[in-house]
């Protein structure tokens, strides 16, 4: 932030500017009521906590530059939302009598959309689930909006129920499309940001051209031509940049989010933490304590909001030095960058051999070789049918004054129809080699 702030004064008394590598200047004007609300939300404890949660979890063990935070991402998402709202405001087709209110709620929602993430995001959710039957980060997001200091700010700003509605109701409005759709502010920011910080060169999104091509049009939402709703559409001149955007989405999943080594670290940490939870009484006796243990005892919102990536790293460091057995072993491996060993039996570019895969798993079970089965979920563009409820979630291309077509109809190869990937993770290279050997032997 460009200025330090006094402890209690949360609205900007003067204009505030944040430097950001993706958006350059993100400004908060002292004369703008929306900006004041957003600035105030930005200062809250739940949002500041996102400074200590990395956007890409363990990816910086593979892409050393990728240590950017969820805080930077939510700020960037809000800035993307501002640009999409500018499209709404310059458009003559769209006029909502409650625009002022919904604009504020939309911007607040983009700032808050990741506020429920726990340490290392999904890692924490998965590893604690058997112990606390915890909530998903989406459920925590709704709870944080309604039950913390954020609720008061939103209530004072007159947009509490509107902001919360983005996370617990479904509808189809342009505001909703900004917060959650196949071309939303979240995806636009994380693709641009993650590309920048990982250093990957493909997948550039020409944001200027994209926003210049965005329009709001009345769109037929089902076969009844009288049923029309306002929605974002992309002019034909923007078709190329939308294609680039989707290819970037598909490729980043492949190359970064589902990177085999990143997953190897994720499963290693899960093993270390699970072992630590099992030995918890012993560890406490030995003087090893952690806020994570306290959360397991009492999985309250208050304790959840105290947790961040540092708590996991601190516990791992303690386990590596003072822990015992598997917890110590796996924690040490993490600190020395020694992930679980991956074997992907089927070539991802050809049809998988299901029978052979079944035999391999059976063999590993018979030989009692520990392994983790991973079926990474690649993401792509999803096409919804015209009669489907979510038809307006398609990216719509404006062909002429009356015709809008879903992108998947114009560019069928972008519609996700990919084969499944299947990976096995092993604790040791020896076990991995045993699997490779068996795979080669079975015809």
């Amino acid at each position, binding site marked *: 932030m460009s200025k330090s702030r006094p402890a209690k004064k949360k609205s900007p008394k003067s204009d505030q500017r944040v430097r950001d590598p993706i958006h350059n200047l993100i400004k908060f004007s002292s004369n703008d009521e929306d900006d004041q609300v957003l600035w105030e939300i930005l200062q809250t404890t739940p949002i500041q906590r996102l400074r200590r949660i990395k956007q890409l979890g363990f990816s910086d063990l593979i892409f050393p530059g990728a240590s950017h935070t969820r805080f930077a991402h939510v700020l960037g998402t809000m800035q993307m939302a501002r640009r999409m709202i500018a499209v709404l405001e310059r458009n003559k087709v769209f006029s909502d009598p409650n625009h002022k209110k919904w604009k504020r709620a939309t911007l607040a929602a983009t700032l808050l959309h990741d506020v429920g993430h726990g340490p290392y995001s999904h890692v924490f959710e998965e590893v604690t689930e058997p112990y606390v039957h915890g909530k998903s980060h989406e459920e925590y997001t709704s709870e944080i909006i309604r039950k913390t200091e954020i609720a008061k700010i939103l209530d004072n700003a007159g947009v509490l129920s509107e902001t919360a509605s983005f996370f617990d109701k*479904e509808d189809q409005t342009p505001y909703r499309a900004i917060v959650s759709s196949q071309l939303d502010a979240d995806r636009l920011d994380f693709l641009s940001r993650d590309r920048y910080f990982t250093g990957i060169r493909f997948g550039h999104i020409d944001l200027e051209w994209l926003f210049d091509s965005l329009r709001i049009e009345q769109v037929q939402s089902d076969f009844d031509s009288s049923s029309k709703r306002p929605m974002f559409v992309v002019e034909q001149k923007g078709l190329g940049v939308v294609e680039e955007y989707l290819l970037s989405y598909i490729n980043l999943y492949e190359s970064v989010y589902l990177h085999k080594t990143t997953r190897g670290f994720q499963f290693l940490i899960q093993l270390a933490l699970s072992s630590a939870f099992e030995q918890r009484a012993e560890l406490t006796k030995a003087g090893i304590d952690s806020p994570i243990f306290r959360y397991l005892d009492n999985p309250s919102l208050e304790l959840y909001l105290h947790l961040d990536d540092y708590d996991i790293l601190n516990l791992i460091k303690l386990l590596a030095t003072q822990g015992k057995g598997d917890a110590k072993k796996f924690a040490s491996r993490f600190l020395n960058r020694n992930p679980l060993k991956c074997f992907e039996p089927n070539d991802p570019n050809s049809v998988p051999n299901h029978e052979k895969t*079944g035999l391999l798993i059976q063999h590993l079970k018979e030989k009692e070789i520990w392994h983790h089965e991973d079926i990474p979920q690649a993401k792509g563009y999803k*096409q919804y049918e015209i*009669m489907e409820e979510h038809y307006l979630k398609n990216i719509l291309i404006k062909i002429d004054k009356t015709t809008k077509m879903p992108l998947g109809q114009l560019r069928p190869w972008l519609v996700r129809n990919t084969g499944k990937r299947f990976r096995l993770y092993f604790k040791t290279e020896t076990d991995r080699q045993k699997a490779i050997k068996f795979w080669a032997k079975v015809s």
Partner: protein
Amino acid sequence: MEAKQAILATLSSTDTREVTGKKRLQKILRLAKSAGYKIDADYSIRQFGPFSNDIAYGADLLAITGQIEEQERQLGAAGFFTTVYSLPHDTRSPIDVSSDFRDLIRFLDRYTTVELEVASTIGHFLDMDYELKKSVHKTKELKPSKTKGAILEKAKEIVEQITSSKEKVAQIRSTGS
């Protein structure tokens, strides 16, 4: 029963030995769970109603290992892709299925996916100990456009059947028969 077994049992029970749509499979199994069948699958409410990672993962694993087939078929007016799960043609039923379970799945399979979605959402709230009225109200709040007219009526019909199945399953369990 494990999620994978529950999926196999469901596919064995339908007339066609297949289920069209990931969402449909999710909802059928959620309703079977509401009907009292012990299925090891945790559900939470998502955009399209109750969703279970255990079921999604179980189906993926069964497909990867060839125990079920997973095809992307072009369906509907515009021919968009939909996932179809089926049992391989050359195999017999891979799992013993009780006639009660089979009847329940066949009953559910007569309804559309959107009716199952609404019913399973109501069922999910009922399982969280909300009263029926409150469960319907919460579902309406979540899905205002889907809980209108005939869809809601059909969903209530499903819920009614599920509730009576639950009593039956509980009775069988208590008598040990």
